[in-house]
């Protein structure tokens, strides 16, 4: 078995131009502060968008809670003129995602979209991006890759959006919480050797969890998704600054948690 892996490893490292990953995952933390303009909502949410470029599907998994108003709609908006800031019209199904929980303050959502269907898109998005489903699909993929797409939930309290977050792809973030940290290593280690399409820790998309996926985790250790960086520091995603901060958070968090936990128990 090991020699099989070795062959695959050799093949994948021998290539000059790396093949593009075919399962792209984008995550985002939703908040009122991230809205444009920012609001005081205490609502939060977490979204994972998974593109399968072989099957042409988009899977959306979202959870949200603490909203001030009842949900009226949810959409992915794209493309904003600049990454991580500004507004754009909905790119996805109008008036809201099919079967997205409406009239509630908290909820969960999971849906798989066929990106070859017109119903996956806002008709205006199709016409604005070239007029065909293919051009709309490409535009949505590129907006996601460029950090120019955000997930937004509209409510009765905030018609124009109560919480939102820009979606970003963080290689090595195997538990999809938006930060590459020690917990992602655990995901890699516990699925090492697994075989399948679109496995969460398969960063190079060779359908096996192997040592290359460990290398990807290590290479991106400390990186943070767009929605957790805050408006002004988006350009620093590629610079080393956020890494020490995230490292510090990883180191400090267990200490903080272990101190505060007993107190919470006493209460």
């Amino acid at each position: 078995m090991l020699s099989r892996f070795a062959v695959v490893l050799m093949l994948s490292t021998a290539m000059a131009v790396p093949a593009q990953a075919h399962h792209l995952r984008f995550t985002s933390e939703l908040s009122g502060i991230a809205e444009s303009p920012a609001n005081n909502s205490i609502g939060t949410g977490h979204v994972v968008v998974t593109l399968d470029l072989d099957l042409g599907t988009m899977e959306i998994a979202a959870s949200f809670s603490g909203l001030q108003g009842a949900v009226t709609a949810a959409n992915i908006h794209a493309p904003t003129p600049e990454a991580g800031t500004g507004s754009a019209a909905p790119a996805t199904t109008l008036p809201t995602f099919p079967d997205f929980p409406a009239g509630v303050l908290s909820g969960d959502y999971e849906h798989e979209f066929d990106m070859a269907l017109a119903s996956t898109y806002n008709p205006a998005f199709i016409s604005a991006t070239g007029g065909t489903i293919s051009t709309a699909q490409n535009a949505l993929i590129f907006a996601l890759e460029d950090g120019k797409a955000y997930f937004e939930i509209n409510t009765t309290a905030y018609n124009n959006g109560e919480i939102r977050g820009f979606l970003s792809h963080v290689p090595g973030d195997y538990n999809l919480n938006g930060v590459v940290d020690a917990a992602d290593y655990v995901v890699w280690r516990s699925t090492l050797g697994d075989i399948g399409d679109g496995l969460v820790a398969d960063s190079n998309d060779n359908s096996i969890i192997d040592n290359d996926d460990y290398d990807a985790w290590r290479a991106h250790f400390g990186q943070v998704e767009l929605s957790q960086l805050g408006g002004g520091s988006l350009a620093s995603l590629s610079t080393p600054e956020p890494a020490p901060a995230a490292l510090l958070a990883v180191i400090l968090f267990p200490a903080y948690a272990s101190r505060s936990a007993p107190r919470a128990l006493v209460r």
Partner: protein
Amino acid sequence: MSRNSALLFVLPLLVWTSAANATVHPYLAFLDGPSESPPNASPGIGTGEFLYNDVNHMFTVDMSFSGLLGTTTASHIHAPTLSPFTSTANVATTTPTFAGFPLGVTSGVYHNVLDLTQASSWNPSYISANGNTTAGAEAAFIQAINDGKAYINIHTTVVPGGEIRGFLLTPEPTTCGLAMLGMAGIGCIARRRHS
């Protein structure tokens, strides 16, 4: 089609083969944007010729493509689609792309001989989905091709989901001859464009 006429047709292609009683099955594919799911308006085209030797389990891939809008990021054969000649399927052959496939280009040629008894010729998940053996994968793969449920796809930077594709076809002797003529024509056009 009669097996004899098929054999006669592919005979020139088999000169290098020494296996006495092997049957070599030829397949063809014509790749373009309108055949994609969803269809696109790419001016790119491509051809694929495939030879499957059912005795030594070699699967020869010969491809040429040109006129792509984006540069290549990956190519594989996908199988099986739910219905013939439509929709999408997961990758059956080597992931993340064919070994040695020209990447970062808008036109090119590709030749490879896949040993279907080797795990490296397959997407690992295709093997595990077909009895966990390369023999199981091979049987399912050839069945999918014969059913019109296997397609070759070229992904590019401009159309990440696939810029051109074509389903593998089992040629009738006459269509096969026509196809070869067509390919020769495309070759001439490509040459003229280059000169």
